[in-house]
């Protein structure tokens, strides 16, 4: 049941990681508003289709504008929003299936343009909303309803993928520490360029890996996540690569470049080329 709308008929399962991500996103948006002295309606949340995408309806408190479209197309939509109205704080929320499988084609172009948006990806290693099929981040060999004999496709390593595509801000976190996560999401929003915060957000129903992520000393499970050391230099490509080559899941900002954003590049052209009015354009066809 959504805070804004009692009738809303989707609920996350108890314990779903997306609850924590929601809290973090709410905090990050609030902080952004405060810092930039902007109205909350200056935020646009573009959501994918999946349990994760339902985020846009479940945010509590004052509502931002939302765009909840079709499966896999958050980035084209966000591209349209941002380049139409660069002043809007544009945030994508999507799942691993939405963002990396059917929507996978859209990452490279936005990275190449350095579109100034922040993406919060909720990775649960599974298709939650369609009830448990394998996703690109499902591990090799894992059995799911659509891989009853084990997955035979190598898994995607999203952070490495973002890095190789030239995404200009790459961060990684997990859903259990919403305060820290909120800070990271805030930094992604501040970053002038294409920013992705990739969040491990466990699916308690189809792929409950809380124990693996956080570790459980009682069960003898070592945690997968580890904090990126404070002395890491995120502006260094090489340092970022090194982080990504270590096992487990690094927590924090992995990379932060400073290429001009698409809007900057666009403005440079605008400053050089003289625009013509429709009347002037019409005149060029005069007989």
């Amino acid at each position: 049941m959504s805070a804004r709308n009692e009738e809303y008929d989707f609920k996350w399962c108890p314990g779903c990681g997306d609850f924590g991500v929601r809290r973090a996103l709410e905090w990050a948006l609030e902080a952004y508003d405060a810092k930039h002295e902007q109205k909350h309606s200056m935020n646009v949340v573009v959501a994918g289709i999946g349990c994760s995408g339902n985020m846009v309806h479940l945010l509590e408190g004052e509502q931002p504008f939302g765009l909840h479209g079709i499966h896999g197309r958050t980035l084209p939509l966000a591209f349209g929003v941002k380049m139409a109205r660069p002043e809007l704080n544009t945030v994508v929320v999507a799942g691993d299936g939405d963002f990396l499988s059917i929507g996978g084609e859209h990452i490279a172009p936005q990275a190449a343009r350095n579109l100034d948006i922040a993406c919060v990806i909720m990775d649960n290693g599974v298709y939650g909303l369609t009830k448990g099929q394998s996703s690109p981040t499902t591990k090799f060999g894992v059995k799911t309803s659509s891989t009853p004999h084990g997955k035979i496709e190598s898994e995607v390593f999203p952070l490495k993928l973002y890095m190789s595509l030239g995404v200009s801000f790459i961060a990684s976190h997990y859903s259990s520490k919403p305060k820290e996560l909120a800070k990271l999401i805030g930094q992604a929003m501040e970053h002038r360029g294409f920013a992705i915060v990739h969040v491990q957000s466990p699916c308690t129903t189809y792929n409950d890996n809380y124990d693996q992520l956080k570790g459980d000393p009682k069960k003898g499970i070592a945690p997968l996540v580890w904090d990126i050391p404070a002395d890491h230099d995120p502006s260094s490509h090489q340092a970022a690569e090194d982080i990504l080559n270590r096992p487990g899941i690094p927590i924090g900002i992995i990379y932060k470049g400073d290429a001009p954003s698409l809007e900057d590049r666009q403005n440079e052209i605008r400053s050089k080329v003289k625009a013509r009015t429709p009347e002037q354009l019409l005149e060029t066809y005069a007989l």
Partner: protein
Amino acid sequence: MQSHDFVIRFAGDGGQGVVTSADAFARTAAQVGYHVQTFSTFPSQILGGPTMSQVRISTNPVLSPGDQVDILVAFNEDAYKFHSPDLRKGGVIIYNAEQFQLPTGGSSFGIKVDEMAKTTGNARASNMVVIGAVAVLIEMPLDYIEAYVKARFTRGRAEDAGIIESNIKAIRLGAEAGKGSGFHVGELAPPNPPKHKQIMITGNAAVALGAAAAGLEFYAGYPISPATTVLVWMENNLIGKGKFVYQVSSEIEAIGALIGAGFSGKKAMTATAGPGLSLMSEGLGLAWMAEIPCVVVDVQRGGPATGLPTKTEQSDLLACMHPAHGDVKLPVIAPGSVEECFYAGAMALNWAERYQGPVIVISEFQIAERTQNIPRPDLGKLAIENRRTYSPNGNGQQDGFKRYSDWFGGEEMLPMPVPGGPGAYVANGSEHDEIGDTTHLPQHHVRLTERRFAKVKLLSDGAFEAEHTDAPALIMPWGSGKGSGYEAYLQLRKQGIDVGWAYTMFLNPLPEKLLALLRSKDLIIVPELNYQGQWSGLLRWQNVRAESITQFTGLPFKTGELTQRLAARLSQRREAKVHA
């Protein structure tokens, strides 16, 4: 006796100056007040390959490319072989004597075009040699061409004078050759220049300009023939503050970007052809469902799939009107001439804002690439409709406004909230409640399905043409069928056949009165360039007794042939009545 109408066809290999010759001839004629229309066909290869470009020149407005050729300029032997059957009796062929020879005694003569051009000191003036020769055959004053040359090459550079001189020399050499041939095709009547100002433009540029004039702010496109020129136009012209144009990575990205921009308050457009339209299927459904203004121009080419990229056909109508799964029926505007392209571009943006949803402009290869002189649109008088944006009292806070509340008619849509303003909601592709949250409750789906269809009716006040509507049968082409259809209609009337005329570029929704008229008739004949008879089928769906006359060759209708087929169909009908 003077003639009022000529068709000159230039044909040869791409790169031999076929298109530039036709273009120069058309502009020459238009500048002195003739009406012209060009029609070209290209091979799908990049350089070379059999190309033809024909110019119809007339003292009256030109409606169709013209059936029969008065003068064929054949730049090579293949062109001669392929095109000479289209030459009318009494027509003349000018051929490039450097490429091949024809026996004398026929209706042809050769000119060594390039050799002559070289003697002027300007090898690039060969198209002027050709035009000079053409001119004398129809007694067109050489002044006209010289005036064109002067206008064309006066660019404020030192070399201007020399270029002009050599071109004029070339014209005269060509004219002499023409005279020397002894042939004569006719005497072109003097022009009857229209009082209004004119522009000379292609259909695609006209659509682009119309959209720009109506306030286009956002364009995202992916190259595809024959729509690429719209993208290129935008890249060059949709610039400045608040404007954005971009070549995106695919048509799927294009439609997504449009939806994002339309949602954010901008007037957004793309242009594509069939394959791109098919890829936009899901996105168009989203725009319809979430009620986002945006415009997609489909410049039709031939065939399904990759089809016939450089041929003309009207077979995307169903896909434009019903592009996606679910109950979706998009507003569609189908310009039937270059002039209508301008207004279609403008009106589509108006419609999108007025009914708050996606609008399709369905254009076509033959109109898109056609160059024509048309009345210069008066931008001061162009009606521009802007979005009703929600802004109640300026406090900018959430205030309970409901984007998707009940709306079942009325004179205009409820206002639309826009990011940054009040009334925040979720534009949602799942079925939703008043504020855009997902719901599966029947009442919302019923209510919003009805709303989505009801608001299309806000657009049913479009203009239409209707003549002799007391006749029992009407001819009603759409899109490119308009020109040859109207010519055929006039010829049938001349023959004393009792038939009427109906036409609109507003195919969905049809102007209300027009639909009533169509339903009142025994027979509506729809000439259309597709196999299935898509428009007559959609009319029958709407309880109109419509039938098609179809052609699916990849080529435009010829007026003469169409007239015959219409006459045959109408006489069949009369006979059927008699025997009934």
